[in-house]
């Protein structure tokens, strides 16, 4: 059993800072609205509240990193031996974009990078946040703001065998434009309803997307709310899940306990499930015989 007492005590302190800061900001706004001389106090309260809340948030950020380094790292290594975990960094932009599944962002943020292997299949996974820059022209001037179009998880699996051609399977609208790929219809009506398949090699699409794999992709989609897209290219399978969630993050107002650990373990099991469900360790992914 893990002892989270000291972490919870510090988390509560941070929460208190944030609550007090929020209250001061609220009082500041009220005083400012009353006008006259009192509005000066409003500004003072507002600034003080901002500073107090900022200190709380900053300290909580440190607690999050402490938790990740002291606890999460061990949990990850328990599940995947010889794995590495870097809470502050993710995969570089070039690696994320090379699958072609995601369009280039104006603001790119990646963290919680896990590297390891399971049943001889190497994997890398990280959290991703991609934002698009928007400009709004109003009578008061020009406003620049960012809209998040992807917040979720990025997975890349590497197997010993290389395939000819490229296959992209996406749920819903495709985020980038593949000029070299043609839309394909698989024999499963249900799969075609759920996913769109694009490829530049028809035979290999049917070779890789076996009925079992199609069924597994549909199961994966059911287990992971959000939008899923995947690409088979060479010896790599890339999966992106846009579920509007920042994985492995503690919540300021939620207690850290064994349940938090269980839910994080579940997040980690997704990697194992993908390898087992999609049977990435099966014959066609590990056989070194040449393709026809």
């Amino acid at each position, binding site marked *: 059993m893990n002892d989270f007492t000291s972490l919870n005590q510090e988390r509560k302190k941070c929460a208190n800072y944030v609550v007090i800061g929020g209250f001061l900001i609220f009082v500041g706004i009220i005083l400012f609205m009353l006008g006259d001389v009192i509005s000066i106090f409003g500004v003072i309260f507002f600034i003080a509240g901002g500073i107090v809340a900022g200190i709380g948030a900053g300290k909580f950020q440190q607690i999050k990193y402490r938790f990740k380094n002291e606890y999460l790292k061990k949990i990850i290594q328990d599940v995947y031996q010889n794995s590495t975990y870097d809470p502050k960094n993710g995969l570089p932009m070039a690696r994320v974009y090379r699958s072609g599944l995601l369009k280039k962002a104006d603001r790119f943020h990646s963290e919680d990078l896990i590297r390891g292997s399971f049943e001889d299949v190497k994997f890398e996974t990280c959290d991703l946040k991609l934002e698009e820059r928007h400009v709004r022209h109003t009578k008061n001037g020009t406003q620049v703001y960012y809209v998040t179009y992807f917040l979720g998880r990025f997975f890349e699996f590497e197997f010993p065998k290389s395939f000819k051609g490229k296959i992209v399977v996406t749920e819903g609208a495709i985020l980038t434009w593949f000029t070299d790929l043609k839309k394909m219809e698989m024999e499963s009506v249900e799969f075609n309803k759920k996913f769109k398949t694009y490829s530049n090699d028809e035979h290999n699409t*049917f070779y890789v997307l*076996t009925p079992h794999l199609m069924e597994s992709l549909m199961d994966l989609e059911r287990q992971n709310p959000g939008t899923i897209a995947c690409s088979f290219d060479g010896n790599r399978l890339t999966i992106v899940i846009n579920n509007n969630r920042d994985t492995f993050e503690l919540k300021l107002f939620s207690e850290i306990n064994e349940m938090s650990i269980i839910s994080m373990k579940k997040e980690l099991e997704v990697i194992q499930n993908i390898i087992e469900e999609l049977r990435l360790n099966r014959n066609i992914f590990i056989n070194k015989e040449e393709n*026809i």
Partner: protein
Amino acid sequence: MKLVFLSLGNGSIIAIVVVALILIIVFWYIGVMNRLRQLEVKVEEAESGIDVALTKRFDALTKMLETTKGYAKHESETLEKVIKWRNGIPSDASLQDKQEFANSLAKVANGINVVVEQYPDLKANTMFNNLQNSIMDTEEHLQAARRLFNSNVRAINQIIVTFPQSIVANAIHMQKKNFFEAEEAKRQDVKMNF
């Protein structure tokens, strides 16, 4: 534009509408005909994919039987019977012939599986294991080729049986294509656990 129409008589307007309708029908007819021809080419392409997969499977099984000489005599004899296609599938071979060929190969593969169970020393042979993986891979490719072929057949058959496209299909004497069926023996072959 409005003035041009006003200056035309009723007869001219009817003639223009009729010509426009005829043109629409002609373009639609050509469109459907081209689509059917394109799909027919895709079906032929997919059938040649089956030929390639069958040849690869035949070659892999031949190599396997050379390795297991003395162990699998019956399987060697079965393969001898289908050896007429040793140098590739003939261009005039029907889909039915290919199905029978695939069926024979599946029987040989299943037979080898039974033989392997009787001689555990074969299982330990690295070369034998590589060949078994190769046979499994050729089977996966054959399944893929079959599914691609059937998918293309399904697409063309849907047009052939759907009204009004069926009118065009009849006019160019295009008939429903046959599917390449997976026989039970082959399904079992895919599930082989070596």
